């Protein structure tokens, strides 16, 4: 096992954990906004895929990673628009539409990719890295944690911003009310539909951004179905976090680390089926749930469309 604790191995493990964790973090934070406002966004996976493809194509043709990220966010928002129009404004079943979005985007992105690139999977140049001054000079940690794409640092900052928004702004209060007692929010003169619409679009943007990061920075290419359950993990993270962004970060770090572990072990030539390592984070979370069995405290109005005047 000593061979495992070499410097390059630890660096690649840390670096990989961040790279794998950031899409989960962004998607999980996004889902948290929706859930807080009372919308169960099962289509998260589809929004990530949409963002991944939009981001990849944009960066491929413009060469700009920032435009790619923006396009990814816009792609996610486009998918979220379906939820907005059908579930929030019309009150259609959120689970049916959510699954339709995931399934539909799996099909649509495969189709678009096929039309554009046929059966080839072109690779982008390496994404730019920003080494943080001073911090990046720490041995091992510096290269593992503090030399990443700027989006990584922005998403960490976002955790703090969201905690602040939830805790001490009107917007945060409105979101919370929309999920807990939408009628009260309505009575206070705030438009529930508008609050939830904002929440869902924000979710779409963040999920799409996460997808774009996954394609452009993480993989450097787009493959159909590439999110491979990341959206579902995002939903689970948001639910486990009980409305606190910091817990999404913790969860994303745990899942990111185990995803990185699978690849790192393969590179180091350790012969364990990757499935064993992949089971770890789920097993840990299940264990925690069993030991500290407790209510998950979801917003009471989660999943219910708001119809004014209806009990």
């Amino acid at each position, binding site marked *: 096992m000593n061979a495992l604790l070499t410097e390059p191995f630890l660096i690649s493990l840390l670096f990989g954990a961040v790279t794998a964790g950031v899409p989960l973090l962004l998607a999980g934070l996004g889902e948290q906004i929706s859930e807080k406002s009372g919308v169960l966004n099962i289509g998260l996976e589809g929004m990530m895929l949409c963002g991944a493809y939009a981001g990849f194509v944009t960066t491929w043709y413009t060469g700009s990673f920032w435009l790619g990220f923006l396009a990814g966010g816009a792609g996610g928002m486009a998918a979220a628009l379906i939820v907005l129009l059908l579930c929030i404004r019309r009150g259609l079943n959120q689970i049916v539409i959510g699954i339709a979005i995931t*399934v539909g985007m799996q*099909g649509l992105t*495969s189709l678009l990719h096929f039309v554009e690139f046929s059966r080839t999977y072109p690779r982008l140049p390496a994404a730019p890295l920003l080494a943080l001054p001073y911090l990046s000079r720490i041995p091992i940690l510096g290269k593992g944690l503090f030399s990443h794409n700027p989006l990584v640092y922005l998403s960490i900052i976002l955790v703090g911003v969201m905690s602040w928004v939830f805790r001490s702004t009107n917007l945060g209060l409105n979101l919370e009310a929309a999920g807990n007692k939408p009628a009260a929010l309505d009575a206070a003169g705030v438009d529930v539909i508008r609050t939830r619409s904002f929440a869902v679009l924000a979710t779409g943007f963040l999920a799409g951004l996460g997808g774009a990061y996954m394609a452009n920075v993480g993989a450097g290419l787009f493959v159909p179905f590439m999110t491979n359950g990341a959206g*579902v993990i995002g939903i689970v993270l948001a639910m486990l976090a009980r409305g606190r962004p910091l817990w999404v970060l913790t969860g994303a770090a745990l899942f990111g680390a185990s995803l990185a572990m699978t690849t790192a072990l393969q590179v180091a030539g350790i012969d364990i089926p990757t*499935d064993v390592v992949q*089971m770890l984070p789920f*097993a840990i979370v299940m264990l925690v749930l069993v030991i500290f069995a407790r*209510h*998950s405290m979801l917003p009471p109005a989660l999943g219910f469309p708001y119809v004014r005047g209806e009990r």
Partner: protein
Amino acid sequence: MTIGGKTIDAGSGSSAPAAALRVLIPVILALAGGAVILLALGKNPIDYYDYVIERSLLRWGGFQETLTRMAPLLLIAAGLIVAFRAGIWNLGGDGQFLLAAVASAALAPVLIGILPRAPTLVLCMLAGIAVGAIWSLIPAILKARYGVNEIITTLMMSFLGTSLSNVLIKLILRDPATTVPQTRSLPVDDRLPRLFGTTTHSGLLIAILAVILVHLVMTRTAFGLKLQVLGTNRAAAVHAGLRVERLTLLAFALSAGFIGLAGAVEVLGVWGTVRADWNPAYGLLVVPLVFLARFNGYAVIGFTLFFSALMVGGESAARRVGVPQHYVLVLVALLLVFLALVEYRDQARGKRVAV
């Protein structure tokens, strides 16, 4: 917990033509939407649809394939109907399905050496049911005892189950004679008997019977009513003196048991073995079908037939027309959206009449 739960009335009393229209209009709209996409890509939509219909319904071999595809979908639907009516969000179908498939695939080649075919198949199916039910036990206890949200726990257990079945195949159950990791396979002659000289196996009969049985139990028996009370209003169930914990555990076990049976039937009827990394992910597709059928067993049969035909036909039609196989997923999504829209219009109109 209820999420997005409108109380759903079982047999809506609309007439047959109206019901047919409710399905037909979304189908036409979805196909039209799909045609627009194909046209935009410069492909001929008529060719595509023509081939889907020919391949999945008109050609005898394809139609039998469609029927075969229905068996696991129907059994999963039966399991979901039980859970959803009881207000339980069992979204961990894939893990339950796969582990049960692996269990029956591991057991079948061993048992067939000792026992005749019939008891072997029955025992393997029972094993599938048991494994599925066991895999739902932790979420069930957490939900019944402590009210832990089952969406999280069943999803987690699903991921765990998928990985665990791969581990089992690769490390323990692997057939040394094959290069790709898979379980020892059950000889074709020992699989589930075919129906009346077709290629469709008798699992389809089991599945149809299961859905009808579930429907009757849920709508016509005291046990079904208890589960529905539990699903509609948990607090009311407690006040009515129902043993909520026990009912929750039972509903989980039944639901996951049917989904486990689906895995066993798919292995015993079609594949005879499970390969590593095999995951048809039927669980996700069946969830919206069950919703759109309003948890009605008979309606589920119709929806499943249509979806099976679309999937079987769409996969091969894609090759013919020159679009990727997954294009059919776009059609599925459009269909879900339009079905949900028509459903919504119906409900809105119903409300206006009632007022």
